[in-house]
């Protein structure tokens, strides 16, 4: 039984592996771009030159990227679990 399940598992893993890589690349880029851009843009346009508020905005942006990543990871796991449950239920119907 496990030999039959292994190719299906491999295919599912390959399907998810691409998703993990793209999510990671997007997160890494966002972690680099978002704080710096929010620092400079907020310093010039939002806070009228006040650097402390601009740095706090940059910190907020970096932590926002982190929170979005955590939310995305938790949602992906629940989506994977729902898919697995669906597959096991369809096997039971057979």
């Amino acid at each position: 039984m496990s030999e039959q399940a292994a190719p299906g598992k491999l295919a599912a893993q390959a399907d998810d592996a691409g998703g993990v890589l793209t999510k990671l690349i997007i997160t890494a880029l966002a972690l680099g771009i978002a704080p710096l851009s929010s620092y400079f843009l907020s310093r010039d346009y939002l806070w009228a030159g006040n650097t402390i508020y601009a740095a706090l905005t940059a910190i907020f942006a970096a932590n926002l990227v982190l929170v979005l990543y955590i939310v995305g990871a938790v949602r992906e796991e629940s989506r994977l679990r729902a898919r697995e449950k669906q597959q096991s239920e369809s096997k039971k119907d057979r």
Partner: protein
Amino acid sequence: MSVCPPYAPFFGFAGVASAMIFSTVGAAYGTSKSGIGIAGLGTFKPELIMKSLIPVVMSGIIAVYGLVVSVLIAGGLKPTDYSLYAGFIHLGAGLACGFTGLAAGYAIGYVGDSCVRAYVFESKVFVTMVLILIFGEVLGLYGLIVALIMNSRASEAARCP
């Protein structure tokens, strides 16, 4: 003793460099140490990899803190009319951010490693891991806040004669 010696920018630039260098060392330690645990987890449960990468993302944020402080301090450096007072302030701000980032990265590395290894067996460890990681990252945030406060005092330095 002059208020604005010519070697004053040395300390300012040392502050910029140390903020970036030490926080990156901490982030590298956190990334690598937790990466060991993630590699161990990946061989048993590959579907948990996305959630177990959270320590790596948090280590990246420690490096971002160092980057923000470096950019902040570098924005206040001047070739002339730069007093030794401002130089020491910038050095202190850079060191504060850098070494707290080192400490935070260290904590994130150890916690990330052992918690993702435990996450293979017990899924309730996830929330605990995120909580402990947040407390570890806040250490770097404290250093950044102190660096911000110190850097804001540099603008009140005396004019050079």
